[in-house]
C-alpha cells in the first residue's frame, strides 16, 4: 500500500510517499504507526507523539482504530491549519 506524509511528518520521515508492506498483524492505523515508528530515527521522531499525528485512509479522516485492510492510500499528517 502507498503511504503519504505531509508537513512536518513529511519533513521528519524525509519522504513524501513510499510503498510499504507491513507484516501480518499490523491491522489498524495504530498498529501501523507503532510499526512505522520502529523503521528508523526519522520515523521515530515523526511518530514520537502518536496522538498528535492525524491519519486518512483513501482520502478520508480515520481514527487510530481504523482497519487498514484493503486500503490503497494511507496518509499521515499534523493537525490541519488551513482556512
Amino acid at each position, binding site marked *: 500500500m502507498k503511504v503519504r506524509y*505531509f*508537513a512536518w511528518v513529511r519533513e521528519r520521515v524525509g519522504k513524501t510517499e513510499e510503498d510499504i508492506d507491513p507484516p501480518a498483524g499490523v491491522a489498524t492505523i495504530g498498529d501501523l504507526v507503532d510499526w512505522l515508528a520502529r523503521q528508523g530515527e526519522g520515523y521515530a521522531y515523526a511518530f514520537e507523539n502518536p496522538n498528535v499525528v492525524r491519519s486518512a485512509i483513501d*482520502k478520508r479522516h480515520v481514527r487510530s482504530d481504523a482497519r487498514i485492510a484493503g486500503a490503497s492510500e494511507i496518509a499521515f499528517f499534523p*493537525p490541519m491549519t*488551513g*482556512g
Partner: protein
Amino acid sequence: MSVIVRLQREAFDAASEVAALKRSRTDIGAVVIFTGICRADEDGEPIAALNLEHYPDMAEAEIGRHIEAARQRWPLLGVTVIHRYGRIVPGEGIVLVVTASTHRQAAFAAAEFLMDYLKTRAPFWKQVEKPGGKTSDKIWVEARASDDTAAERWKSAPTKREPAN
C-alpha cells in the same frame, strides 16, 4: 444548488466569484462572503509570507463532503469555496467561502459552518516564512484548540431550517 470548489495557487477575486454565482438567476436573496486573509504577523512576530502545503485530492473531497453536510442542514442555493496553496504574502486572500440562499440566516450559518470545518478538517498546513528568507526561519503554524472548539459546537447544535420570513 450550484457548487464550485477550487484549489489554486493564484489569487482570487471575491466580487467576480459572487457575480458568477448570481449570474442569470433571480432566486437568490442573500449572499455571504467570507475571505480569510494572510496577516503580516503570527503570534505577534512579523512574517514575510505563508507557505501552504495541501493534500490535493483529499482537500477537494473533504471540502465537498462539508458542502454536502451544509446543504443538508440549510436551504442553500449556491456555495463557492476557493482555497489557495503555495506562497501567500500578507494582504492576500487565503480562502474564500461564498454561500447563497433565499434568506440571510442560512447563508450566514452555512458560511460559518464551512469555515469552522475547513480550519480543522481540510488537509492544509501553513508554514510561516520569516523576514530574511532563511530556511531555518520556516516554522509550521500550530493548530489552535479554539478552532477545534468552533467546529465541535456544530455537532450538538440542532438542525436549523430557515424561518418563513
